């Protein structure tokens, strides 16, 4: 039996209540214990207090670094914080010249503008020029002089190099100073001084893309190796054989200005007719009135045919038709009818081709009228012959030293690998580069040069047309401009600035009479940036030396595949590969960023199941495909300038390098290959296309007419406008802008699609670069894009370019759908964006029929995934302080450069005067090389924009008959007007 135990009498008597009492007692006890523990004592308080104070103190000490804005102790006279200054200067890199104005804000150059005083670039710039400001803030730049990739002081570097040069001189060992074409007369003087000190130094000029054939042909035809002055504005008929003079050939900005002024229907009634014969669809081909596909191997025979056709028209019986291009007869007829008012140019680097071109222009009497010799172009002076000679000497071990300046032959010469091998055996190799490239990285010494915005200098792009280059910022790094360096090595202790002034005093000041003292002459020229001396007619006479053999050599085309190597508008010869803006600029024709690719003809692609992004083997090299309408049959085209390996983190290994494919044929580099093999593969390669649909689908988007139609009725092609105006009706009040009402006219007939505006806008408005993957995702951020449409036959289509930016609709669909009212309308007709207010619903973006709104999909600034200039302190120096840098998640778009409008309004107010027409120029308008964009106040009846697009609020004032608004039928009331494109095709 179980024993019951008890602990006390109470439990024995009443176990239940005992248990209850016991539990209660325990509970009370525990409660008191817990209470006692949790109750804060004085010590606890002190502990907590101490911890809190300590913690607060530590936390407070981890504050963000203070960035001090130190005011000037003594303010420089011309600098007012917050106010921009403009300095005239000169851009000359990669054989491209531009006279520029540099906008400097608080000591930093942040924008390049065109200089309207320049007789060469005439206020125009190119995308490269616009983007060049970012090269100043490139992290890849050399930070100081280097020896064997180790930093050295300038003293040691100078000492060692001078010793080495002296020794080589004593040994009579040859040193070559290899430069690209030098157009600075003062620099030439410096080089002469260097050669005087070291007679063993030979100066060789080399250009990545030469005009060697032209120069040698001109030497034979005219007795002088020069590139004549082409007056595309005066020509009635322009025939270009494969010369992309609007995009990349010789002096595209100058030629675009002239070309568009010869076709300007905004002010004139004259229009040149432009024939383009080419294999690859170039910017010029896209703008041509008549484009004739031609294989590169056909060029010689086509030129010969044209020559013979012209002879026939002149009454001489000859044979023609070797090239098989039947259209040449009409071309010849047109040229013949416009004798003395035509231009025939060829992009060929063969001397023989250029000899025929010279002969054609001679018999057409163009020489002396549309082609003159008083102001020859000096930006390409190298001949391939001297370069070949240099390579022979280098590889033969005959050189004691090489000094490189502005050249990168290891990358951009077909013999690059030979040069790089030979360079290892040269005792003295020096580069004056400011940033690494394939050649400088092989050099023993880097005498680090400066960016052109840090330099003094001058230029003579065309004979007798001078311009000055002035520094707009102290050198950011321990660099020294090459001229200065060479002066030091020559043993000359004069500063280059003084040297420059002395040179100008001696050479130019003495030849003028307008200024009586040098300082005022100098200051005036420096302010204007350009200086002109009267042209001298050189009195060259044509002779047909070499012509007959050239005509004989013109062989008929082959049936093989041919590969064209061309420069792109954005990257040119690849010098700017590390510039993210240019890498992201869509190719004007293909609309592809961040890659080069092989363009293939449409018919072949369809027949062989090849599409965009397929990979084909061309001579065994894998290349991604872009199916290019207009690509001549049996031809392919690839851009040079890609595949850099030592450009910097942005530019390295983008695309592939095709410079090694360039062939040297009878001494001249030939930028096309005959007889290439083509194989298809099953592979694909992603390409970043920012436009994938190429037809207007019959919609009246980019309207056009022919010149003949326009002459009869200037509203031709624009018949819908009247209909739209008639049907425009609304229940709402008409918008009313009592003050200004900003408008923008875009002349589709002038726009060449070059992309200058896109980059200009990107620089001005701090538009982020987003990289290949995001571009491929169709998220490109550009506020102004150029839509490119094809029409007609895919084998040889017509091309229409249409720049599209925010249309600043007065009845904007985006405005009323924003839930937070982040995009209101201003009382000057601007559609504004309040970034602070935007929550990023993207409704506005969806509801914009023009799709010009851009969303910050990701954090593009200060993000390691977008490791471009906005991810480094140096790169961010280029940002425009007048424009907000947008954060992730907000929508942005074109503002008509509202900061510029406000700036000029303030200036006018301070000066107590009304705004002048044309005073305000948005970034896209300012430097447009074809003057296609006109901005102004539509409320000002005298303004140019009023004349062109009228008053958009008043259908009674429709502006120019060519004017229409994009998608006008939606009644969005855009403030942007487009003027129809006119094609002069009536042959």
């Amino acid at each position, binding site marked *: 039996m179980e024993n019951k135990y008890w602990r006390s009498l109470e439990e024995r008597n009443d176990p239940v209540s005992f248990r209850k009492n016991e539990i209660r007692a325990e509970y009370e006890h525990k409660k008191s214990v817990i209470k006692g523990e949790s109750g804060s004592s004085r010590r606890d308080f002190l502990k907590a207090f101490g911890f809190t104070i300590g913690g607060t103190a530590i936390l407070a000490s981890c504050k963000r670094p203070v960035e001090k804005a130190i005011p000037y102790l003594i303010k420089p006279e011309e600098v007012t914080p917050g106010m921009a200054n403009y300095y005239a200067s000169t851009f000359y890199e990669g054989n491209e010249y531009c006279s520029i104005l540099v906008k400097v804000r608080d000591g930093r150059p942040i924008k390049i503008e065109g200089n309207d005083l320049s007789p060469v670039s005439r206020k125009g710039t190119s995308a490269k020029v616009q983007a060049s400001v970012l090269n100043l803030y490139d992290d890849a730049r050399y930070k100081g002089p280097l020896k064997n990739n180790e930093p050295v002081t300038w003293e040691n570097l100078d000492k060692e190099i001078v010793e080495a040069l002296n020794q080589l001189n004593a040994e009579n060992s040859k040193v070559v100073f290899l430069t690209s074409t030098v157009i600075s007369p003062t620099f030439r003087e410096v080089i002469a001084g260097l050669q005087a000190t070291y007679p063993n130094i030979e100066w060789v000029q080399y250009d990545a893309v030469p005009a060697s054939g032209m120069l040698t042909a001109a030497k034979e035809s005219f007795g002088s190796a020069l590139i004549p002055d082409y007056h595309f504005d005066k020509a009635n008929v322009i025939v270009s054989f494969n010369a992309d003079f609007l995009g990349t050939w010789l002096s595209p900005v100058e030629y675009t200005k002239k070309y568009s002024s010869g076709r300007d229907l905004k002010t004139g009634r004259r229009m040149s007719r432009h024939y383009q014969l080419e294999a690859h669809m170039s910017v010029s081909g896209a703008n041509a009135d008549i484009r004739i596909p031609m294989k590169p191997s056909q060029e010689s025979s086509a030129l010969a045919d044209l020559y013979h056709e012209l002879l026939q028209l002149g009454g001489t019986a000859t044979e023609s038709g070797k090239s098989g291009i039947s259209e040449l007869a009409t071309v010849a007829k047109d040229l013949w009818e416009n004798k003395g008012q035509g231009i025939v140019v060829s992009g060929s680097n063969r001397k023989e081709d250029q000899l025929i071109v010279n002969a054609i222009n001679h018999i057409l009497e163009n020489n002396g009228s549309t082609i003159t010799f008083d102001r020859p172009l000096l930006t390409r002076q190298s001949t391939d012959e001297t370069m070949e000679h240099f390579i022979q000497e280098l590889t033969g071990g005959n050189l004691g030293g090489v000094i490189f300046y502005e050249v990168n032959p290891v990358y951009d010469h077909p013999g690059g690998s030979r040069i790089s091998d030979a360079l290892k055996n040269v005792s003295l190799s020096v580069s004056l580069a400011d940033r690494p490239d394939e050649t400088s990285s092989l050099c023993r010494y880097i005498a680090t040069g400066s960016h052109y915005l840090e330099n003094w200098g001058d230029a003579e792009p065309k004979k007798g047309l001078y311009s000055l280059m002035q520094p707009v910022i102290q050198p950011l790094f321990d660099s020294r401009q090459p001229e200065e360096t060479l002066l030091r090595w020559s043993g000359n202790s004069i500063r280059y600035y003084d040297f420059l002034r002395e040179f100008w005093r001696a050479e130019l000041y003495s030849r003028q009479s307008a200024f009586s003292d040098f300082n005022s002459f100098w200051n005036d020229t420096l302010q204007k940036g350009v200086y002109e001396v009267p042209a001298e007619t050189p009195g060259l006479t044509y002779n047909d030396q070499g012509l007959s053999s050239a005509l004989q050599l013109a062989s008929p085309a082959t049936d093989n595949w041919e590969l064209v190597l061309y420069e792109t508008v954005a990257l040119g010869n690849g010098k700017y590969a590390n510039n993210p803006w240019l890498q992201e600029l869509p190719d004007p024709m293909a609309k592809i960023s961040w890659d080069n690719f092989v363009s293939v003809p449409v018919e072949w692609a369809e027949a062989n199941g090849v599409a965009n992004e397929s990979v084909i083997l061309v001579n065994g090299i894998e290349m991604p495909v872009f199916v290019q309408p207009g690509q001549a049959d049996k031809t392919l085209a690839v851009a040079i300038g890609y595949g850099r390996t030592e450009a910097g983190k942005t530019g390295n290994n983008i695309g592939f390098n095709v410079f090694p494919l360039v062939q040297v044929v009878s001494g001249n580099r030939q930028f096309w290959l005959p007889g290439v093999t083509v194989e298809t593969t099953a592979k694909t390669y992603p390409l970043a296309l920012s436009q994938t649909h190429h037809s207007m689908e019959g*919609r009246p988007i980019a309207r056009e007419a022919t010149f003949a139609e326009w002459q009869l009725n200037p509203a031709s092609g624009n018949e819908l406008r009247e209909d739209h105006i008639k049907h425009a009706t609304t229940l709402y009040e008409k918008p009313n802008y009592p003050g200004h009402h900003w408008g923008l006219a875009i002349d589709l007939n002038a726009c060449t699609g070059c992309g200058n505006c896109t980059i200009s806008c990107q620089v001005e408005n701090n538009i982020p670069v987003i990289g290949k993957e995001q571009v491929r995702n*169709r998220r490109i951020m550009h506020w102004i894009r150029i*839509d490119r449409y094809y029409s007609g036959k895919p084998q040889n289509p017509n091309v229409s370019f249409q720049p599209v930016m925010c249309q600043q609709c007065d009845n904007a669909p985006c405005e009323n759908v924003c839930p937070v009212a982040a995009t209101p309308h201003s009382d000057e007709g601007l559609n504004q964006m309040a970034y602070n207010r935007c929550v*990023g619903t993207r*409704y506005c*973006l969806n509801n914009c029929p023009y799709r010009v709104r851009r969303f910050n999909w990701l954090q593009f600034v200060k993000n390691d995934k977008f490791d471009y200039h906005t991810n480094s302190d140096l790169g961010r120096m280029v940002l425009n302080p007048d424009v907000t840098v947008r954060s992730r998640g907000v929508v942005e778009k074109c503002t008509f450069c509202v900061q510029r409008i406000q700036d000029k309004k303030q200036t006018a107010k301070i000066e107590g005067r009304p705004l002048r027409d044309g005073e305000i120029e948005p970034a896209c308008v300012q430097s447009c090389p074809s003057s296609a964009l006109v901005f102004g106040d539509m409320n000002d009846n005298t303004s140019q924009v009023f004349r062109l697009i009228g008053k958009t609020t008043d259908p009674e004032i429709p502006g120019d008959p060519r004017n229409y608004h994009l998608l006008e039928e*939606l009644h969005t009331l855009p403030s942007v007007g487009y003027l129809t494109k006119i094609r002069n095709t009536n042959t």
Partner: protein
Amino acid sequence: MIYKTEIRGPLIQGDKSFSQISREILAPIDAKTPLWWYFAMATSLGMLGFGLYCIYLTLATGIGSWGLNNSIGWGWAIVNFVWWIGIGHAGTAFSIFLLILRQQWRTAINRAAEAMTVVAVMCAGLFPLLHMGRPWLFFYIFPYPNTRGPLWVNFNSPLFWDFVAITAYILISASFWYFGMVPDFATIRDTTKSKIKKAVYGFFAFGWTGSSKEWLRYEGLSFVLGGIAAVLVVSVHSIVSTDFAVGVIPGWHTTIFPPYFVIGAIFSGFAMVLTLVTIMRGAYKMHDFVTDSHIDAVCRVLIFISLIMGTAYMTEIFIAWYSGSIYEYSIIFESRMFGDYAFQFWAMFTANAVIPQLFWFKAVRKRIMIVFLISIIINIGMWFERFNIVITSLSRDYLPANWANYSPSWVEVGIFVGTLGLFTAGVLMFFRYIPMIAISEVKSVAKYNKPQTNHQSGHHE
């Protein structure tokens, strides 16, 4: 008296007494949680977890983690938003419209439908928030007095209407659902043996005693909330449709959208109710309450709505041609019907306008598996409808240079999967913790077939 007709059979089967009804409906709450429930719940929470991870990615990196682009600013997020909102329509539509039409058969289903509404609207509500570029500033769309001027919201913007409509809808439908449950919670409180349940359900029962006064107020509140909800059912999706109809984009700018959206919403909602109810019936053996005739009735309704949907589709196609607008024509014919998005269009058309026609056949309506399958197909079809509206219109709008295609990133898909997980988790919670059939209301229809209680039913009107 309307329901007291001999044409219809009994609304619940099995000649159940009131206590039997309470017992049977409450059985799942009192019973041990079945194993499949844990399994289903784990799966749902797994999906939800993945969705939360995707949401985290979106918030941490930005909308760029989705597949959207400059041309297509709205993608799966908005498709899913509209889809869920549509599903969320069923509960209220069911309760309100059938209440108004005195369709007493609704009583077995309305609770489930309303529960579904609340969960679906919660899922839907996530998307407008998540698809913002800067969701941390979502309060900018509240019209509250502020020191910025004051800066008000844009009362013209359909997105603001959306915000108002959805907020109102979730408040009203959740209240309607909850107040309807109060008597049932009281029943649980009074019958359960678990003290925790007693306490919890007691709390939610709001001190309900079942007095006549309470019933009077209860009916009054139901009437008021029902009245408001009836308006909202029509307004919410009409307003959602204005997100598109107010736009200028071809394919969006359509006056047919408000009724088309409301009908579409009810269609997808009914389909989802059908899906849910067949699962509920099978899993919890509720055949006596959710009878074959219930399923049959919902199927018949679906035929009718499907015909309206088909008419709407045909109208859109006709108007696209008849309007003479090249942009409309291009969207409907060249993009949706015979273009890059033909699959999505025809999937929509077949699933919504063709397949539901099978319900004309009694043989189909009788086979629960087929009914279930068709209900799923309709749900998918309705998803494609929203895809068609949102994405095809944006991808082929006015300027062909802007034409772009869209495919979602896995993050977007993940968020959708997450909301599916949230939805199923919510429904499972509902199955487990809430009487899935409105006991008090079922009792009101159960009386009618019992001769001895005939006179009582007369009182209840």
